[in-house]
């Protein structure tokens, strides 16, 4: 297919953001229209990609490769395979939905939507680039808009949260830059091509691999986030405006996990095996510790933020298993977490925009007052705590199943996290929806149509994956088998 669909995916939001710059800032309607059109366009393109994607073919598809900086062998190289397609669809979908949710932003809209589309460029670009240099650029492009989006439109401690986010992420990624340079100079011929680096005739020396792996790890672990690099996350999530929290949780966290699967694992196979046990331990810490901390929260949004830490632990655990089942679980968990937690943040935004508080103790009895909202909240909560029949269960189960074959004790400890997760989510539901209605909220209106419609696609996806997991697994499984084969892992 010679139609440059991936380039369009990257450059449509860029064109959108540049055209917003040219619009008068009073003309809010036009600005919103441009942003919505651009994100709708990439959603359509993503659907087109999924429709035309040949999932039985494990090679890179929709590839585009042009020389960019020939002196150092940097190429503008895009392409997708089974590992990235789900995440690209996720990015496009959440970008569109969060753009709808952004209509409630009522200050400095021009800057907001300009930065919003710029953020989209970085997110999409990260998942489609197959050249390390290009990957790094997109990876970093995400930072600046995200910083401003949190720092200008965020909550009370927005400056602190935004600066912390920026410094943490940058501190991680500069080490990735060194790692990129190291693999470049140690490969023959010198190349930034991710595919060539992953399929080298002679792999790097193990000691070298371990060093470089640590460099990449620092970048990816901050994004996932893996304990103890997670402390930026609750701050950033809580302070960010609702649509941005959705993208943070839904897409940005996935960049880390994706980095492991696209770069660290295939390129530094020996080091990946070397670090498998630490991965499993860290994943388990994430799961249990994240759940315990989430349990202690009274702020609804902070609770959801810590639940993200817990859920992303399953990704690490699945990655540690070195088996197809575990990898499938990890990748699917990233997708599911994006959908479910994206929805959760939208729901938090709904209640916060009405009540202007997120203190769980101040609510109660909303079930009778806001039936539509309560129903939605329940479904998303159940999906999040891993109720069979909904999507969260499938991926968590696969991760645990994969890792159980390798680490029996660690997996047993990790499953405690499931119980804890159920506990804090159920307590949350009880505090919010059941009990006596706080008279202060007697006049709260239920969800409006826009808010409801925004959640419907997410709901459908949760249900479909929950009932028929093969609908998405068939896209990723062949690529995962390929990856596990390359790594000499277990195919089961």
């Amino acid at each position, binding site marked *: 297919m010679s139609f440059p669909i991936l380039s369009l995916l990257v450059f449509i939001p860029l064109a959108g953001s540049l055209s917003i710059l040219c619009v008068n800032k009073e003309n809010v309607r036009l600005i919103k229209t441009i942003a919505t059109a651009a994100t709708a366009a990439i959603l359509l393109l993503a659907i087109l990609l999924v429709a035309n994607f040949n999932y039985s073919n494990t090679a890179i598809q929709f590839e585009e490769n042009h020389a*960019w*900086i*020939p*002196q*150092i062998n940097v190429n503008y190289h895009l392409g997708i395979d089974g590992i990235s397609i789900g995440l690209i669809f996720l990015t496009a979908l959440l970008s569109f939905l969060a753009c709808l949710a952004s209509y409630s932003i009522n200050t400095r809209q021009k*800057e907001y939507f300009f930065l919003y589309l710029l953020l989209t460029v970085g997110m999409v670009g990260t998942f489609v680039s197959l050249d390390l240099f290009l990957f*790094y*650029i997109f990876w*970093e*492009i995400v*930072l*600046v808009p995200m*910083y*401003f989006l949190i*720092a*200008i439109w965020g909550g009370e401690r*927005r*400056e602190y949260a935004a*600066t912390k986010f*920026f*410094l943490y992420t*940058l*501190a991680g990624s*500069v*080490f990735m*830059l*060194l790692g990129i*340079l*190291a693999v*470049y*100079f140690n490969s023959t011929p010198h190349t930034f091509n991710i595919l060539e680096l992953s399929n080298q005739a002679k792999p790097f020396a193990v000691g070298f691999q371990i060093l470089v792996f640590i460099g990449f790890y620092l970048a990816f672990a901050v994004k996932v986030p893996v304990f103890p690099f997670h402390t930026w996350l609750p701050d950033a999530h809580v302070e960010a405006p609702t649509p941005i929290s959705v993208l943070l949780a839904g897409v940005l966290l996935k960049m880390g996990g994706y980095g492991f699967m696209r770069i660290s694992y295939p390129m530094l196979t020996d080091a990946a095996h070397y670090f498998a046990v630490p991965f499993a331990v860290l994943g388990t810490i994430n799961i249990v510790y994240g759940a315990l901390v989430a349990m202690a929260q009274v702020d609804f949004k902070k609770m959801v933020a810590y639940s993200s830490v817990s859920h992303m632990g399953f990704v690490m655990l699945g990655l540690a298993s070195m088996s197809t089942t575990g990898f499938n679980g990890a990748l699917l968990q990233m997708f599911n977490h994006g959908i479910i937690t994206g929805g959760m943040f939208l729901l938090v935004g709904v209640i916060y925009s009405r009540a202007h508080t997120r203190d769980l103790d101040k609510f109660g009895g909303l079930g009778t007052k806001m039936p539509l909202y309560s129903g939605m909240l329940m479904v998303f909560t159940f999906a999040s705590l891993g109720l069979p029949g909904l999507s969260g269960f499938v991926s968590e189960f696969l991760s645990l199943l994969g890792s159980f074959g390798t680490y029996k004790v660690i997996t047993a400890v990790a499953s405690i996290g499931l119980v804890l997760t159920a506990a804090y989510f159920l307590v949350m539901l009880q505090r919010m929806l059941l009990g006596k209605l706080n008279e202060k909220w007697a006049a709260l209106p239920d969800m409006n149509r826009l808010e409801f419609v925004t959640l419907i696609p997410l709901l459908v996806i949760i249900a479909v994956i929950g009932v028929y997991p093969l609908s998405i697994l068939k896209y990723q499984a062949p690529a995962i088998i390929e990856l596990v084969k390359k790594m000499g892992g277990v195919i089961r």
Partner: protein
Amino acid sequence: MNIVHDIRFIVPEIILLTSALLVLMLGLFVRRKEVLGGLSLVGIVAAAISLASSYSLGRTLMFGMLVNDTFSLFFKYLCLLAVGLVILISMGYRRLAAEDKPEYYFLLLVMAIAMMLAVSTHNLLMIYIGIEMVSLISYILVAYEKDSLFSSEGALKYFLFGSLTTAFMVYGISFVYGIFGTLDLSAITGTLHAKQNEFIVFVPLLLILAGLSFKCALVPFHMWVPDAYQGAPTPITALLSVGPKAVGFAVLMRIFLRDVFISSDHWIGLVTLISIFTMTVGNVIAISQTNIKRLLAYSSIAQAGYMLIGFVSGGASGILGVSMYLLIYVVMNLGAFGCVVLISNSIHSDDIKDYAGLYRRNPLASLLLTVFLLSLAGIPPLAGFVAKFFVFAAAIEAKQTVLAIAGVINSVIAVYYYLKVIRYMYLHEPQTLGIERTPLGLQAALAVVGVGVFAIGILPFPFLAWIKTVGF
């Protein structure tokens, strides 16, 4: 060796000198002093155009006092670019009294000549003369705001420090002459290489390094920087932050990176330490600054530390890294200072606190300053990232892992204070409103560097192809 024949290779310098004298004399007759800035600019552009035709491969001129190689050519262009942009910025600087303008532009043009001489020679005496000329003019220019105490204080500190380190340098050069019997670097390279571990060679080179460290503002010879930068008229601060630094690095590379001379471990260890300290001191002290010029002063110290990474790494990729970094640094740092001039024209302050809410008063200036600061921080896809990329690449290639790690950690620290300025501009509300019109010259300068920062960042290959040819 025909001196008359050689003259056609120094046409650019002659053009500059002519226009400098013309500016000085016309200053007596012309009433509208703005014309003089335009005239100086014409001189710079003419010199740049004639530079292309005055180049001949690897020739030495004027009895071996000047050398005409790709290295000098590149740095001459760089000097002309820097001075040209500073002239444009000066045309928009409101605090310069009209009667002072003729001498001001005269000095700027002579400065350009001095810088061009210093970078295009491999004779130590000529290097010394060029650098000393640059220094003397800098002292005068820093003190140019006659009624400002800061200006005089800065100039005095600059002068005292400068004289001391120049004395070091001359002392070192005299040693070199005593040991080798010549001042021509190309003649002593082979001998130097053989003797590089001997103490007798170490001492003079250390002294020369000290002298050049002052010009490049490397730790521990950086003390003059904040005061001189704060006191000087802002366009001069801009020039100081790029011009002498480019010259200093050019000369450093010429002296120390010839052949494999700097391969001795002592040297590498020493310069590695200087590099780490320069980055760290610059970045850490910059965090607590409240004046934008002082902040940029410390930032420029730190930037010199990054350039040293390329210098320590050496080899072709080291030279490439430093040259690329200097080109980009000239563009982005002059951009940042141009924005400072633009902003101080309307808010009459260099205090970062007064930048609060600037996005409302002057959206374009705040956007541009943000872009330049992010570029200085090394955020892709801006040019500053390409600059850092190539010095870090040189370090990794030369297996200077410690230095590379120190460099990246420092670039994270730096982001904190660049963000501080950005925070004030975008996250705080303004006290007063009102924008002044932007002078045309400044607009032009900012347009050039603004486009440059994006162009080099996104399409670095033509610049890279050009710099790859640079060598001596």
